[in-house]
């Protein structure tokens, strides 16, 4: 008897849970008759939960809203950084038969097959942020990360007056970050040979770990005058390390991307600058490209049967400093992060 009750209870709880989840879900195609005009666009990223992608998604959402409310968008992707998992997500999304897919690839090649399958199924795929160039994706919107690194290097050189020792804080293996580091090093080599990159640190993309490694770095090498972090979590960690060691004044910290935490540190002057591109714009444009590709016009297309889209759009990157944030208009742009789901 007890068994039956236990079984019944378990099932009841689970069933209600599932039903509840289902209700909360944005439904693309569940409502029968109107399904024809409904369109679903999926954004697939490789670390869901990264603030950067939230901004991309916000841009996408706004773009979708500007087209009309028959368009639904969703954000998908594994929380951990695993290219094969992301490829599987793309495959799963493809099975939902969305109108278009936007992909930020975890690496350059792993997603090729998955993207190819989506294209074969007649779904336009637009790359953004991190490109899988050989996948056959119709278009790519993003930032030249090499250039991104160079921007950071240029700012660093200016702030240091052209000489000193610097270090890079990064997660080895992440393509965008490797490119930024590469751009950073090469620019310095060519344009500011007196600035030496003496150390590359692995902070595992974690603020606390970043603090630990930067502390050790600053201690072992008091000549370090600058730290460049290739991702959004490095600069807050580096700032914390410098604060612990009372070296905030002596070290130039330049981060990448922006977040409420980074903005706060910029305003307080704890970090000197952060290089930013415009994830909102990238998301916005990527969606527009996907929409264009999904709705072919008379304009002759390079990728029939999809509509015509340009193969690559690069956005610029620029340095954001605390000074710039004193302008209310600029600040407003970076505050109030968009809500996700």
């Amino acid at each position: 008897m007890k068994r039956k009750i236990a079984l019944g209870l378990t099932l009841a709880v689970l069933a209600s849970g599932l039903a509840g989840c289902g209700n909360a879900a944005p439904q693309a195609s569940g409502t029968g008759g109107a399904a024809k005009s409904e369109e679903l666009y999926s954004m697939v990223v490789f670390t869901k939960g990264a603030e950067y992608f939230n901004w991309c998604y916000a841009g996408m959402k706004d773009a979708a809203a500007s087209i009309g409310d028959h368009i639904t968008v969703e954000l998908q992707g594994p929380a951990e950084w695993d290219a094969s998992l992301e490829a599987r997500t793309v495959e799963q999304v493809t099975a939902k038969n969305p109108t278009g897919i936007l992909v930020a690839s975890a690496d350059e090649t792993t997603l090729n097959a998955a993207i190819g399958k989506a294209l074969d199924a007649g779904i336009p795929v637009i790359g953004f942020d991190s490109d899988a160039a050989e996948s056959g994706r119709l278009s790519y919107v993003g930032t030249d990360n090499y250039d991104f690194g160079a921007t950071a290097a240029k700012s660093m050189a200016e702030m240091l007056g052209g000489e000193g020792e610097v270090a890079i804080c990064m997660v080895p293996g992440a393509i965008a970050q490797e490119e930024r580091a590469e751009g950073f090093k090469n620019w310095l080599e060519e344009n500011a040979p007196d600035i030496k990159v003496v150390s590359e640190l692995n902070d595992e993309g974690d603020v606390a770990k970043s603090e630990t490694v930067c502390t050790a770095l600053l201690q072992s090498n008091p000549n370090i005058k600058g730290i460049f972090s290739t991702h959004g979590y490095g600069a807050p960690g580096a700032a914390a390390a410098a604060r612990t060691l009372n070296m905030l004044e002596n070290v130039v910290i330049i981060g990448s991307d922006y977040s409420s935490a980074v903005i706060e540190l910029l305003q307080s002057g704890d970090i000197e600058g952060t290089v930013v591109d415009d994830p909102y714009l990238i998301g916005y444009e990527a969606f527009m490209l996907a929409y264009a590709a999904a709705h072919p016009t008379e304009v002759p297309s390079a990728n029939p049967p999809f509509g015509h889209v340009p193969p690559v759009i690069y956005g610029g990157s620029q340095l954001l400093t605390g000074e710039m944030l004193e302008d209310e208009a600029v600040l407003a742009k970076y505050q109030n992060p968009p809500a996700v789901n």
Partner: protein
Amino acid sequence: MKRGRKLTIGNREGTLLITILVIFVLMCLIKGRLFYARSNIEAIFSNLAYDLLLACGMTFVIILGGVDLSVGAVLALTGIICTLLIQQGVATIVAVLAGVLFGAAIGMLNGILVAKANVAPFVATLGTQSICRGICYVLTSGYFVAGLSEEYTAIGRGTFLGIPNRIFISILIMLILAVLSRSFRPLKNMFYVGGNTKAAFISGIPSGLTTVLGYGISGLMAGIAAVLMTSSLGMGHASYGISFEMKAISAAVIGGANMHGGSGSFLGTALGVILVALVNNVFIMFNGSPNWSSAISGVMLLLAVGFDVVRNRVKSDRGHR
């Protein structure tokens, strides 16, 4: 022989202490003031504060014969709850208490699952890990929780008697636990429960309660570490504490805790944490490849335990002659 026992320093602790001292002296000789400067020592210790707290909690759990994989996620979730409350303008003390107690509550939930429902510790804490980490993202969508009051950030950034709060609090808690675990009955009970759960029950030791307490302390430590971390960094984030549980387990095992339960030493655990932190520091000072930095604690673990095994073998060989 008997006198050696009275010193209450076991073999492993001795080995660790000597290793740490040797590394320290070598570094002083090589890097000079750069290394033994007060600021460097302070920095090393501030950074290992979180690990120290988590490893102490983990030591209790390991003594109980279990393992707690949830500490990293509990740290993140507690941090987010604290910072969200602070952001909402809740009084600092209330937010801190709420966060710390929340950590303890999750820990106790683990304990109940293990002790009362007979769920394997690995599974129970893996489940809560996954749930807590999920809730972190549900609550924040991956955004930083920033804009904290200075009153709050002062907890992690301030000093007490010239010692940074983080060092002071973590070492104080470690010492209290180390002393209490030897004499305070509810904590002493953990050794009995970990040594033989059934015999402990028959001997009138409340094994269920003790288990819940042990996991609760582990969660509590995660909560305290969360407050220190978010206040000193000035922000909370869902990605905090990833793989901290592995570091904590490594440190406890390096310090001589036995994963089969019944034995473990807080002094050893603390030395294990310090050793790993020191080696990390040395690694960076000598510009070690970043590719290997996350393997350090694992390698140290194998080396520490391996050294003990080899030494014991040599000793017993000598004994035979």
